[in-house]
């Protein structure tokens, strides 16, 4: 199979857009400030013991323990790929119910899903929604799968720079 450079460029743009969207929405609604549930506190303290930042550890623990803006971005892109603009609105309702099942007020997930739907609809002339699904998986891989200590330091730096800690 041949790889065209246009597809790689579209995938890179999708990755950057998804990363900026979910990190900014999650930081604005106060995920790095305090652990919402007891599991997030354990993950944050363990990452601090390994040499990372505790606020970035709270951020990563909150992503694991409840569907936040990262899950909202993934679900919005999946439903936009399958149904259309109405699918993004359905995804917002499903993410709200899922947030309430996991003991979370649910502000970050719904706003993340709605903003992702609007951004994908604005960019849908150039980039198909399929590339946003792949971009979201690559974006979550750079945070949760590559190198945990470095990722927690970067997230703590962003949270301190925005003044949300």
């Amino acid at each position: 199979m041949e790889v065209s450079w246009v597809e790689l460029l579209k995938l890179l743009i999708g990755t950057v857009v998804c990363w900026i969207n979910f990190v900014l929405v999650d930081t604005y609604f106060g995920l790095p400030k305090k652990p919402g549930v007891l599991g997030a506190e354990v993950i944050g303290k363990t990452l601090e013991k390994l040499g990372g930042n505790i606020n970035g550890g709270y951020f990563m623990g909150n992503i694991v323990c409840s569907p936040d803006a990262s899950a909202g971005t993934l679900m919005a892109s999946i439903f936009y790929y399958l149904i259309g603009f109405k699918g993004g609105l359905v995804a917002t309702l499903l993410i709200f119910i899922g947030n309430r099942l996991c003991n979370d007020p649910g502000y970050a997930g719904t706003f993340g899903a709605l903003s992702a739907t609007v951004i994908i609809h604005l960019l849908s002339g150039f980039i198909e929604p399929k590339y946003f699904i792949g971009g979201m998986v690559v974006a979550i891989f750079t945070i949760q799968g590559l190198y945990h200590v470095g990722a927690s330091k970067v997230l703590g730096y962003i949270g301190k720079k925005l003044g949300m800690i």
Partner: protein
Amino acid sequence: MDIVMLLIGVISFVVGFRIFLTKNKVQRLLYICCLNFAIAALIALYIKSPMGGVVAAAYFVGSTLSSNAIAHTLGKIQKLEGKE
């Protein structure tokens, strides 16, 4: 098979090997979160129908709930061992 599915497949293979090889429980939970994202995306790309979206959403919420329960039990056990 296009570039997006190939990239997601490579990511899920890498994360699977890292789940098997690490020894820390907390880092295993973080890798499992990444694997759930990859499998939900693969399900939606494999079945190109609105029912596939419902399956992906149900799988994602269920696995997140289960991961939440495991992390909470880990915290309970650490608190109970640290008290004595």
